[in-house]
């Protein structure tokens, strides 16, 4: 097969990069509007549902290897300190303890993703790792942790991001000249002239909006189980990115990549926090390699919440200017991000600011502040959730200042083209989403309904309706590879190296393969989550798994089908293109004659397996692909207690073709519920005097329960986006969380009759706003 190399562009969470694509063969034509599909598009229960409801699904936490040791960490109690001495002798002598690793005996373990020793001398946050105990049981490891004696030299610290950016602030990392993310910050994006735009505005609004640090709290914490057999290091990792784990572990241990095998079959959630091996995976691999025994290191819930990431907190200042008729003349956003001590990038808080509304004069300023807090990590649309919440509440304030309907103001400034990159959108159904959502929530009568709303026994209940918009990429991209194998009985195995992080990837890939192969769904099995037997697949994040892997699987299946029909054609002495595979049977295309099962032919080949490869082709050039959507929220606020209850959410999103309406709706609901948590209750609390996190658990850090769930009304647009990829499908992981907090905040503002200043909208914040 001739190989071609094509240059394309890939957008990942707002950042565009150039990408080379190696293509062997061609992708099949796009499934357009008129494609007749039997399995794709049908509500399909998960193919691995049985494993997940019976306890048969083996998660990383569940791996138990003979002789396996359990690990527990001792972490710094100080916001900033230097470790000067570790005495582990007492711990090492305790029952069941096999080793204690720390700076003075394992300082050579470097985290390649941070270019820093895992057991660093400088501990820049409370919760930074000091020592790792390896013992036979969990209880023994915990006991020994408490017996490790550590001497610290404490250092001055800063946890407030605005204070950290002051010249006299203590240095978060003592080898850096300042606390800025790096020398490129603050980073400014500019088009037109914002100051002139403000001057020519007839109405201006200035708004400050703060968003909290929210912890992911995946139900399965970060961690790994590793085994070294003298030749191969096998690591079972709770990860969204097995190939990233392989790369980093090989580098950290000085092994070749073919000596590292990363496996992840089932994982208990990630939401963006589980890219690469994490410190816990590096430690498990290092300890297993050094001790020659299997090692499991899973973080405790508390360690997870201080050391494994969170959505970074922001303080945002918006300035909007408009003419009397609502035409925007200026948008300015200044964002201070509290990035923690070990940050490497800045979340995409400005992504929507640059393109959601038509405006010639736009400026965004990102100020990344390092602070003596744990590292942040990507969390489901990192930055975009926070940026949209702040901007959409500011837009509502502008509408109020103009005396205009907020939706009318949005339509007045509707952007038909991607202004930042000066090119068209492949498709933009946002106007339709606004119309459908407005109709279903009763937008036109929202003021009258609010007045009519029963105010309760104490006369304190108020109703509000608000909305916010969403934009995201989600079209995926290369490289992503898959292989299809047809076995002698006519069943198929699809081999990938992707991850199903709970979204239903295994199921949608099986649907796509079955559709393309002409087999029933039960005749297709999808393998994933193993670098040894899988083919390269991208990390599962950025809403790009389906849109990247789906087309690769489809091409592999199409090629296998072609080869199989070629073989059957030889056996029956007919041209291959006169034949088809339908529901596992061979059919004559013209006459419709049924000619027996595919298996009845393949089994004549003495064990020969038809194998074919597929890969994701290049992305469309000169056009921007987006999921656009809108959400509308109805809330009830008790002015007496400050309690907010979300009654109803209407969600209208364009995610292209919907491969599985059942799991799609689960994704949308899940994103809305996480967004509701961010809007109303999730907030890391830091003791400013000591720089320690006070609610690093699920007791005091509240996430939604089943009783917080509102009525959720999902409208499926379900139309293939033919620019996106050969499926016409976009991702749905991030879109539903993006507009949820903004819509709820605007609904609360409508209910209480004044603007909100930030999230979460806890009772005390509401009562403050009412003062």
């Amino acid at each position, binding site marked *: 097969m001739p190989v071609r190399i094509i240059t394309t562009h890939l957008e990942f969470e707002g950042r565009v990069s150039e990408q080379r694509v190696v293509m062997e063969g061609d992708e099949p034509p796009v499934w357009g509007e008129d494609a007749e599909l039997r399995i794709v598009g049908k509500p399909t229960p*998960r193919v691995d549902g049985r494993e997940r409801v019976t306890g048969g699904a083996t998660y990383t936490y569940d791996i138990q290897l003979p002789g396996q040791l359990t690990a527990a960490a001792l972490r710094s109690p100080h916001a900033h300190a230097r470790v000067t001495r570790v005495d582990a002798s*007492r711990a090492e002598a305790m029952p069941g303890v096999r080793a204690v690793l720390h700076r003075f005996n394992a300082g050579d373990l470097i985290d390649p993703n941070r270019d820093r020793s895992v057991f660093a001398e400088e501990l820049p946050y409370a919760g930074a790792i000091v020592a790792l105990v390896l013992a036979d049981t*969990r209880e023994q490891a915990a006991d020994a942790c*408490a017996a490790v004696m550590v001497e610290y030299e404490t250092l001055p610290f800063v946890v407030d991001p605005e204070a950290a950016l002051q010249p006299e602030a203590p240095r978060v990392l003592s080898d850096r000249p300042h606390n800025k993310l790096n020398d490129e910050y603050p980073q400014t994006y500019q088009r037109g002239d914002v100051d002139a735009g403000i001057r020519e505005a007839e109405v201006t609004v200035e708004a400050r909006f703060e968003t909290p640090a929210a912890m992911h*709290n995946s139900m399965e914490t970060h961690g790994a189980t590793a085994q070294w057999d003298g030749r191969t290091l096998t690591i079972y990792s709770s990860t969204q990115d097995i190939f990233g784990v392989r790369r980093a572990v090989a580098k950290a241990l000085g092994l070749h990549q073919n000596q590292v095998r990363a496996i992840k079959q089932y994982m208990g959630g990630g939401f963006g926090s589980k890219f690469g091996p994490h410190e816990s995976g590096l430690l498990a691999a290092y300890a297993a390699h050094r001790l020659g025994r299997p090692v499991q290191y899973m973080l405790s819930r508390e360690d997870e919440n201080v050391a494994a990431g969170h959505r970074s907190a922001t303080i945002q200042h918006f300035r909007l200017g408009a003419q009397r008729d609502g035409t925007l003349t200026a948008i300015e956003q200044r964002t201070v991000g509290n990035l923690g001590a070990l940050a490497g990038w800045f979340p995409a808080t400005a992504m929507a600011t640059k393109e959601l509304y038509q405006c010639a004069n736009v400026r965004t300023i990102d100020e990344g502040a390092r602070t003596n807090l744990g590292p942040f990590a990507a969390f489901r649309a990192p930055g975009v959730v926070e940026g949209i919440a702040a901007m959409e509440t500011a837009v509502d304030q502008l509408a109020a200042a103009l005396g205009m309907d907020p939706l009318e103001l949005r339509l007045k400034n509707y952007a038909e083209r991607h202004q930042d990159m000066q090119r068209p959108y492949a498709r933009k159904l946002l106007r339709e989403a606004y119309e459908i959502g407005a109709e279903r929530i009763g937008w036109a009568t929202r003021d009258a309904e609010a007045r009519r709303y029963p105010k309760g026994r104490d006369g304190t209940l108020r109703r509000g309706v608000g909305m916010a918009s969403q934009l995201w990429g989600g079209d995926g991209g290369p490289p992503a590879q898959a292989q299809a194998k047809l076995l002698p009985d006519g069943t198929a195995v699809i081999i990938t190296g992707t991850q199903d992080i709970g979204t239903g990837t295994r199921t949608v890939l099986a649907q796509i393969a079955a559709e393309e192969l002409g087999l029933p769904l039960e005749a297709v099995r999808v393998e994933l989550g193993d670098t040894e037997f899988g083919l390269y697949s991208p990390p599962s994040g950025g809403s790009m798994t389906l849109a990247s892997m789906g087309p690769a699987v489809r091409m592999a299946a199409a090629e296998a089908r072609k080869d199989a029909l070629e073989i059957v054609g030889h056996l029956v002495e007919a041209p291959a293109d006169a034949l088809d595979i339908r529901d596992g049977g061979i059919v004559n295309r013209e006459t419709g004659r049924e000619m027996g099962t595919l298996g009845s032919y393949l089994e004549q080949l003495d064990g020969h397996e038809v194998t074919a490869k597929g890969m994701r082709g290049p992305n469309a050039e000169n056009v921007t692909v987006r999921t656009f959507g809108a959400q509308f929220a109805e809330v009830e606020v008790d002015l007496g207690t400050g309690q907010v209850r979300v009654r109803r959410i209407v969600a209208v999103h364009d995610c292209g073709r919907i491969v599985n309406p059942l799991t799609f709706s689960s994704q949308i609901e899940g994103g809305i519920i996480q967004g509701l948590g961010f809007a109303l209750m999730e907030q890391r609390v830091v003791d400013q005097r000591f720089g320690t996190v006070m609610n690093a658990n699920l007791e005091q850090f509240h*996430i939604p329960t089943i009783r917080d769930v509102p009525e959720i009304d999902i409208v499926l647009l379900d139309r293939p986006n033919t620019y996106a990829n050969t499926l016409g499908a976009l991702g749905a992981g991030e879109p539903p969380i993006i507009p949820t907090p903004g819509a709820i905040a605007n609904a609360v503002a409508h209910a209480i009759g004044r603007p909100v200043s930030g999230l979460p909208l806890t009772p005390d914040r509401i009562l403050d706003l009412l003062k």
Partner: protein
Amino acid sequence: MPNAPSQSPDAAPTAAPHRTVHLTVNGIAHEIEVETRRTLLDALRADLHLTGAKPGCGMGDCGACTVLIEGEAVYSCLTLAVACEGRAITTIEGLSSSDGELDPVQSAFIAHDALQCGFCTPGQVLAMKALLARNPHPSDDEIARAMSGNLCRCGAYPKILAAGRALAGHPS
């Protein structure tokens, strides 16, 4: 954060006290020797290698470790193994019949897609099982109250409620 010291660092290391416990798990009698402080969750996972009950928070907040003791849903991370002497325990592994036929609760969870990553699912299924055993036709509010001790970070709650409604015999 660092583990709270469970003993003074100056105390001499001593072997922790152990005791023999008899547990009937999924109908099978077991005799195990455990440290008296070992939780039922650790005993099930580490001693009996039944990993269906999951460690989620270690302090009785999330419900991923839910098992049934004499039909009642309990957090196994807050239950000591030695406190279960002679008790009958059901874990997720014991819910389906020995020939592999799923319990109706399990089937309803699959049909309604009442799970995403699935890590909390064993606990959710068992909490629902316990509810239906004491109240075969719960109202929506009763379902929500009974299930509110089991967190799901993926947010499968609407589908869990739908599965519960179907099991309770409500029209969908």
